[in-house]
Structures are given as structure tokens and as C-alpha cells.
């Protein structure tokens, strides 16, 4: 069996030039902004390790609650259905749908003051190999226990969401190891509910260890 080299990514934030002062501008910009901006605002907070879970699940929800004073709409963006979406265009469409549904049923007249605008930021991904590799699933488990959280984020969120080749390569490699069932379980992990990436790592390790026990 071939060795599997683990990759990781580092992200650089860049302004897209799009911003919003109210809900209609937010929806309008959301429809056209680069998908890496949707990715950034939904997921970047997961890489910030805090001991406490954040109040809202993403930047859009925070801004809607804090600036537009629409906590009910902000909470809708914690919709568990969002956790099932692993495609950014579908995720974008779902968020726009949630926002438009709410606006159709409610008077959302909040307007951001000076300095409170929502600035759409995109992430530039720089991807590179780590020094970690594995020859079998057991070794992969040990790597996943110690590898940087950036790598966990890269494989199980970024590469997966951005259609990257590395998650597909990982998936192929696990499957080639006669672990098709394991890959199905890993594929079923929903990134959206975790307070941070370390919590996600713990879940991944638990799934693999359980899989091993079941194989015995």
C-alpha cells in the first residue's frame, strides 16, 4: 500500500470590495460574491480556538444579530440543515433562501451605522505538504491525533468544501485500505456543529478508534 502524505493550508484574508449596510445589500452581495468569501465567513471562526462556543455559528449571523438586531434571523443561520451541505454554491443558495424567507415574512429595517458595515472578505489558500505521512490506517490515526489543527481543518472542511483534490485523495486512500465503511463514517461528519476544530479532531479520532474495535 502506498504512503499517504498529509497536506495543510494557510489562509490569507483579502477584501473583496463588496460590503453591505442592510439586509437587502447583504443578500444581493451574497448572490455574487466569490465562493471563497462564503467559505471564509462561514468557517474561519472554527480555527479560532476558544474554550467557550461562540454565540452564533458564523459571521453573517453575528452581524445580523449585533448590527441589524435580528437575533431570530441570526439563529436561523444555525439551521442544522446547513451542516449537511458540502458544496459552497448549495450553501450560498441555502443561506440566501433563509434570508429571503425571513425578509418576506418580517420587516427588517435595521441599517448599519458608520464602521458597522459587513465587509465581504475572501480567503486565499496556500496549500503545501506537511512532514506527516502514513502507510496504513493505524498510522493515519496516530497522525490525526497530533497533526496541526490546520491540517484537520484543511482535510475535513476546506478541501471538502472547495472541491479540492486532497480530500478526494484521502478518501480514495482510505477506501483502498479496505475501509470503505470508515470513509462513509468520516464523510458523515458535519463540521457545522463543532465549537472549534479540536472538537472535530476528537470526533474523528473517536470514529476511527471505534471502527478498529468493531473490526476486531
Amino acid at each position: 500500500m502506498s504512503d499517504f502524505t498529509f497536506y495543510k493550508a494557510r489562509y490569507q484574508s483579502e477584501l473583496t470590495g463588496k460590503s453591505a449596510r442592510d439586509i437587502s445589500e447583504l443578500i444581493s452581495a451574497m448572490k455574487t460574491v466569490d465562493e471563497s468569501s462564503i467559505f471564509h465567513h462561514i468557517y474561519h471562526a472554527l480555527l479560532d480556538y476558544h474554550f467557550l462556543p461562540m454565540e452564533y455559528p458564523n459571521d453573517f449571523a453575528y452581524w445580523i444579530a449585533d448590527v441589524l438586531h435580528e437575533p431570530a434571523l441570526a439563529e436561523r443561520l444555525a439551521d442544522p440543515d446547513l451542516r449537511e451541505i458540502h458544496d459552497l454554491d448549495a450553501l450560498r443558495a441555502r443561506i440566501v433562501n433563509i434570508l429571503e424567507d425571513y425578509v418576506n415574512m418580517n420587516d427588517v429595517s435595521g441599517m448599519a451605522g458608520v464602521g458597522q458595515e459587513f465587509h465581504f472578505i475572501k480567503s486565499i489558500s496556500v496549500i503545501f505538504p506537511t512532514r506527516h505521512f502514513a502507510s496504513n490506517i493505524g498510522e493515519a490515526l496516530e497522525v490525526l491525533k497530533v497533526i496541526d489543527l490546520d491540517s484537520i481543518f484543511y482535510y475535513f472542511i476546506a478541501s471538502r468544501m472547495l472541491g479540492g483534490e486532497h480530500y478526494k485523495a484521502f478518501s480514495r486512500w482510505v477506501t483502498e485500505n479496505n475501509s470503505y465503511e470508515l470513509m462513509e463514517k468520516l464523510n458523515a461528519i458535519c463540521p457545522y456543529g463543532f465549537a472549534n476544530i479540536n472538537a472535530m479532531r476528537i470526533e474523528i479520532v473517536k470514529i476511527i478508534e471505534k471502527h478498529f474495535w468493531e473490526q476486531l
Partner: protein
Amino acid sequence: MNKKRSVWDYEDIVGRGLLEDLELLAGNISGKVQHVNSTYAGGGVAEILNRLVPLFKGLDIETEWNLIRGDDEFFAVTKSFHNQLHGRVGGPVDVQAHEQVSVMDDLDAQIKDLNTKKRMLETYMHWSDVNASEMNNDGDFVFMHDPQPAALIRTKEKGHWIWRCHIDVSNPEPLVWNFLRDFVSKYDASIFSTPLFSRPDLGIRQFLVPPSIDPLSDKNIELTQGEIDTVLDKYEIVTDKPIITQISRFDRLKDLPGVIDAYKLVKKRIDCQLILAGGVAADDPEGMEVYQEVLKKAEGEDDIHLLLGSPPFSDIDINAFQRASTVIMQKSLKEGFGLVVSEGLWKGKPVIGGATGGIPLQVINGVTGYLVHSVEGAAYKIANLLKDPELARKLGENGREHVRNNFLITRHLKDYLLVMLSLENPSRIIRL
């Protein structure tokens, strides 16, 4: 500025992963990096370059730090630029609307004002020409810091030129901004500390790189209890009751009277003490006025330690004040990035801050501290933290982790490397 410093000095603080990444990213950078600003000492830009440039060199990246020169008049002009660009108070300004209203106002005064501004712009351009003729800006990545050297873009022959803006230009004086924008818009990219400080009218790439603190500098390095006590003894501060501290210049926008009022509300119910430590800039006549006002307001309050840093406090003194505190305040009414907040959080202290400038990026409400909007709100949160040491400890721990992830110099270095790689390869996904 030939010192080198190894990123591995930070291993115990940030772990191996980031440092290995820095080496890998740096290995993919080819060519010379140049940083250009106006001083080697004094001010936040010089402070950060003094720490960053040796780290660039430690990563075996050929790096130069060059200064522009000018006379007193030039630096008076650039200081005026700074003040006029740096976030006017009073809301947003539409450039064209502002000009129309101004001309209607008082024609003579406006003409005089415009003549003064014209002379300022001429002085700026004169020294820019002098520097252009004397400097060799042949770097492959040229970072021009702040407005002072911005017009040197006219001499660009090669490389990627980046305008690194450390100040808030979101709401500038229109004439100065329009003048500066003509130069800045010719750069390959700009870097801002936060979206809040950026401009929508630049027409070039705008990267985001927040500032950082150096955990190994005197201001932030770990101190023993003995070292902290020595500093407190020097200022006759006894640690028999919890300490609330605000470190800031004596400046109206830091709301020192508001901090004292909040302290007084808390003091009625909980025995505590307040340290207000800061300096007054030599060229800031208002600073001494503010100090006198604060002194008067603190009269008769034995547990308020009003410390005027004259000569300035040492970095170790500031470090010790923060480490001796139970709660740190930054109750600004208006703020730049407010990096002193990260200094407090790094010491594991919860910070209560005004929701302005860069403070909300550092104080995550209820996670690393509290954002407040009034004296009563500040007092309530101070009381919460003094009454509940476990809560204070938890927020302080969160704050330290937040700074470790986001506001340390190693992250700053990584961001600069990523910006350089992004300029070499303008794709959204870069594979090394």
C-alpha cells in the same frame, strides 16, 4: 539593522507547526524584501519592524529596512497628514459633497486653508523627490509603510510594491486623501489592519493583516512575582486589594474620566484600586490638560494610582502593571487598533473595552472580556469579574488563546509571507 532572529525562539509559545510552515513559506519566496518607513525608533511601525525584520532575516530572506529622510517641516506635514487621514470624528464624509459645502462656507478662510495645504503638499513632494533621488528601492517586494514614503511609487522599476497602511483611513480629510490616493492606487496591493480602516476607492488589492505583539519583548515577556513586586514597590502600590488598570495616553478619547467614574461606582461596594498609567506626547499640549483634569477628578481617592510616565515608563513597568491586575480596561471612545488590549489578554487578564476601532476584534464579548458602552456598564462588568475570580480566570485564558492564534508576531510574519506568495501567484488557490 543586521540582526537575525530565529523563529524557533517562539517554539514554546506557538508550537512547531507554525514555525515549520514559516520556514516552508519562506523557502518559496525568492528575491529581496525591503521595508521603508520614516524612523527606526518611536511609534508602533518602528516597534513592529524592529521585531519583524530580524525574523525575516532569520528565515534567510534577504531583507532591508530603509528610512526616508526629511526636515522638521516635512515631518510636521506628515504628522498633519496622519491626523487628517486618521479617522475624523463626526461620521462619514462624501468627498464631493464635503468640498461643495466647504467652499460655500467662508471663502477667505477656505482660500487661506487651501494655500496652507498647497504648501504642505509641495513640501511633501519636495522631500519625496529628494528621497527618490537618493534611495535604491530595487527590492522584489517593497513594503512602504504609511503615508510618509507613499509617493516613492513614482520610482518603481521592478518588483511588487505594497502600501502597508497602519492607520485608519476610512474617514479621511478629503483633500489629503485624494492627494495620497493618486499614489497609493499605483501600488500592486495594499495592506490594512482591519476592514474598518480600509477605503472602497483604491482600485487595488487590499489584504488584511492585523498588527501583533511580540511575546518575547520586554512589554510581554513572562515576569516572576519578584520582578512584578519590584515594579509595584517603585510606584508604592500595595497588592492588598484587587487592581483595575488602564494603560493609555492622557487623551480625551481614552475616556479616563469614565474609567474613574466606573471605578468609583464599584469602589462603593467592593474594595479595589485603580492604576491609570500613561504618558503625554511632547508635541501634544492637550495631553497635559487632560492629565490635570484627570488628576483633579482623582483627588481624595487614595486608591487611585495616577501615574504619569515622565520620563516614559519602561516596558517592564507596563508589563508588571498589567500582570498585577485583576481586570484591564480600555474604555476608549475612539481607538485605532488598540493593541494594548492584546497585551492585556496575553497576560491572561480579562479586558473591558469600548466597542470602537480594533477593540471588538480582540475583546470578544463574554469570551475574552466585555464590550461596554457606558460608565454603568463598565462598573457592572468590573464588579462581575472582581466577585467571580473563576470567571475572570476563564475569560483571561480565552483571551490568551485568542491572542496566541491571532495577534502574535509569528502570525504577522506568516501573513506577510502569504501576501508575498499571493502577489507572485494571483490565483485563489496556491499550491507549493
